[in-house]
């Protein structure tokens, strides 16, 4: 049991977290970085396809911004999108200069590939391991920063944040479980940045790693930070049946086709111009319609790459070829691979401004956990990695700067005792037949049934009831492992609590938004309704209940238009 202090505490060591750490160090702050897994195990490593930036002379940040806003179905805040797209080029070059081995063109300059929802080829990539390639470079830079000794940077690896500490107004830091010892500690900070990633495991199946359990969203929510756009959950069009493992959009970017059971490129019916490269919500709905109308194959449609040059697959899509062979028994060079829409990404999250500040003083957020609202109703492929580095950097700078004016907070002793009692109470629960895994499974399957690509009032109401039941079951589920060292059972128990909070918010958002926009498609309200719904839904937690607020979408220069691909 100990107390640590830092100017800036960063929770999460994925791309957003590490980018924030480097930026805060650049400002001379003393930094602590906490991650429940070793930084390179963070889920950012799974990003396959690439990262967007309008860097070519033939492209412009305005075009990138327009594609992003249209992709968002006009729910993105346009001031945030402007920041994202204006700063993209410099950030991309910074990544290259740090060491990322981006693909090159014939002249040795950065080369691009096409991605969905974009008029221009502006996706920069490393084969189909872009996230891994960038994440490992970011970790290299962290090592360099630590060796340089310019300012303190301490990385707490395999430490699990259990709660944020609040005095009712400010966020003061976090309580943490050192997974290796089972000890609880407090880490106090002048500014706390959440970079804990998404909540993909709310659904089953999901492209997300097992660690993507919405921890940050739930913890911030519990101290009064509002969650925004939570109903906007992206379902990716090409995921493997069963496991939900992703096949990158880069495959379609390189020219792969989508086929139904008749062998037709069905996208011609839904998006005659963009075809396979329409935005993700459009493609996922098209696939689901084909499947529902009986033109699927065993709940899937086919992704066909047979016509692509074999060399191109070896040089640019090697990982997904291996995944196909290992997980689906299909070599994409020889056969089309069955795929289906699957839960992929949280457009919503903790509401922040363009500095990464949340409405709770002292609390910042960046990356998938946050919602500055650059993705709105639907995120464009390869815009998320960009989001993590741009807003990670901004949050790091903002927290470090603000920290200069603030004294180190003091947390009452009762904080750590309260947290310890909470965990002990979990461990002391009497045994019964309930299993954490079973509750999580039931949650995932029901969310997939009721809150996926197509949604309806009945389905959503049913899901709201289901979540109540799951929460009741969660109240008594026992933690079977009583040990201290690497008690992963306890960790899963805590994560399930976070997942249930996220699910509750997603469903409430989806019920409230009585229109169809981006990823939210209500069969009972099939039209977009700008007159009433050009606004965000904000959910604020309090012990008395959840408060609903609305905030208008910020429009700068792109008036909402009909959206066709």
């Amino acid at each position, binding site marked *: 049991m100990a107390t640590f202090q830092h100017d800036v505490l960063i929770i999460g060591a994925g791309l957003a977290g590490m980018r924030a750490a480097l930026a805060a160090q650049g400002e001379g702050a003393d930094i602590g970085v906490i991650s429940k897994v070793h930084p*390179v195990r963070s889920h950012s490593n799974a990003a396959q396809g690439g990262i967007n930036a309008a860097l070519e002379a033939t492209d412009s940040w305005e075009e990138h911004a327009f594609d992003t806003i249209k992709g968002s179905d006009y729910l993105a805040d346009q001031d945030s999108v402007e920041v994202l797209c204006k700063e993209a080029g410099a950030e991309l070059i910074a990544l290259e200069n740090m060491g990322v081995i981006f693909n090159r063109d014939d002249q040795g300059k950065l080369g691009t590939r096409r991605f969905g929802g974009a008029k221009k080829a502006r996706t920069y990539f490393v084969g189909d391991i872009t996230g*891994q390639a960038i994440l490992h470079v970011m970790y290299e830079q962290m090592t360099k920063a630590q060796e340089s000794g310019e300012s303190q940077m301490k990385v707490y690896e395999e430490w699990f944040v259990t709660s944020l500490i609040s005095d009712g107004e400010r966020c003061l830091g976090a309580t943490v479980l050192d997974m290796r010892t089972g000890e609880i500690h407090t880490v106090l900070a002048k500014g706390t940045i959440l970079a804990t990633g998404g909540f993909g495991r709310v659904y089953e199946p999901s492209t997300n790693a097992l660690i993507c359990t919405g921890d940050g969203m739930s913890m911030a929510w519990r101290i009064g930070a509002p969650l925004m756009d939570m109903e906007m959950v992206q379902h990716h069009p090409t995921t493997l049946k069963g496991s939900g493992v992703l096949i990158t959009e880069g495959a379609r970017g390189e020219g792969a086709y989508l086929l139904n059971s008749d062998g037709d490129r069905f996208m011609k019916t839904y998006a005659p111009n963009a075809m396979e490269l329409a935005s993700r919500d459009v493609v996922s709905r098209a696939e689901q319609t084909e499947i529902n109308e009986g033109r699927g194959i065993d709940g899937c449609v086919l992704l066909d790459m047979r016509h692509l040059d074999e060399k191109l697959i070896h040089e640019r899509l090697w990982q997904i070829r291996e995944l196909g062979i290992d997980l689906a028994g299909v070599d994409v060079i020889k056969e089309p691979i069955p795929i289906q829409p699957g839960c992929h990404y949280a457009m919503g999250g903790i509401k922040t401004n363009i500095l990464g500040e949340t409405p709770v003083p002292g609390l910042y957020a960046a990356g998938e956990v946050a919602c500055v609202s650059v993705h709105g109703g639907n995120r464009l492929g390869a815009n998320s990695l960009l989001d993590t580095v741009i807003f990670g950097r901004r949050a790091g700078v903002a927290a470090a700067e603000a920290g200069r004016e603030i004294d180190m907070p003091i947390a009452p002793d009762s904080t750590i005792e309260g947290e310890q009692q909470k965990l002990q109470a979990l461990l002391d629960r009497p045994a019964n037949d309930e299993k954490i895994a079973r509750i999580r499974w039931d949650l995932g399957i029901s969310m997939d049934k009721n809150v996926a690509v197509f949604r309806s009032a009945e389905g959503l109401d049913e899901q709201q009831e289901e979540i109540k039941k799951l929460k009741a079951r969660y109240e008594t589920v026992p933690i*079977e492992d009583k040990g201290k060292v690497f008690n*992963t059972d306890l960790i899963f128990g805590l994560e399930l609590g976070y997942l249930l909070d996220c699910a509750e918010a997603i469903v409430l958002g989806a019920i409230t938004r009585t229109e169809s926009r981006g990823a939210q498609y209500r069969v009972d309200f099939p039209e977009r309704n700008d007159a009433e719904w050009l606004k965000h839904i904000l959910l604020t937690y309090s012990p008395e209940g959840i408060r609903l607020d609305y905030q208008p979408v910020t429009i700068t220069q792109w008036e909402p238009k009909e959206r066709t691909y």
Partner: protein
Amino acid sequence: MKVNLNVKRFDPESDGSTRFQQYDIDMPENSTVLDALIHVREYVDATLALRCSCRSAICGSCAMRVDHRARLACKTKVTDIVSDEGQEITIEPMGNMPVIKDLITDMEVHWSKVRQVVPYLRPTGPPPEREYIVSNEAMLDVAGAVNCIQCGACVSDCPVLEIDKSFIAPAALAKAYRFTGDPRDGTKKERLEMLSNVEGGIWDCTRCNMCVEVCPKDVRPMDRIMQLREQAVAAGVKTNTGVRHGTSFANSVRRLGRLDEMRLFPESVGMFAVPRLLKELPGAFRMLWSKRLMMWTHAIPFAHKPIPGIKHVRRIYDQARSEKKEHSK
């Protein structure tokens, strides 16, 4: 299908002993070993500890010994290991690292070695206005090494590391190649000097190929180590045991058509490294005694006669040399 796991358990909070525990479960066909372990953890025995996250061979969390060989559990199908249903699959933590609990090891052994190779790009000269201009071929060449997910499988099964704790080991050396092979790095020679001269550096690999066999991402660490050696020699980093050993070996065969053991050692450590030579003298006598050096005449330095077909051997050398010249043009 019936799956029968035999898992090595270690609980640091009990008496410190290890034991094997059997889990018989039913799994869908096509399951990976990780699926099976997760099933055990979720529904059979919540105390079983392992690391895993992505389920798709990208996060590098789930390396462990399956059937006595380091593998990613998420990339290994049950049917890759056993042909008959219910046949036992042995699961153990990785080797060459301390075990923390069950299948979770302390990977600091690995990370400390990664830090040793200065694991970040060190460009020299003024930064470019935009990106560095480099060929795609160069990027694709290092991509092979960048593909490494730091899972530790090769570190686990490296036999050199098992007896020599100073060996930088395959993964960190592959990481080193990622920088020496990158045209943007300005410290290639410095890196190669360090990697050649440091204890446990590139010349300590015995080329057993184990790392290549166990690597789940086709990084082929040993091939990278060989590339590092070539780069080192090409950069003129030659005053070390490794290079001298190779040169002496090659010269001996060219001269005699066979190995001249009496010269190999002194030439490797350096003819003037008297203390080292004296230190090894007892070993040399033992070799004589045990007839590893076949004849007394062999003990007299430089007394070998070339083998009868030496002409042909030299012709092969000349051919190889001219081809190499041609190639490097």
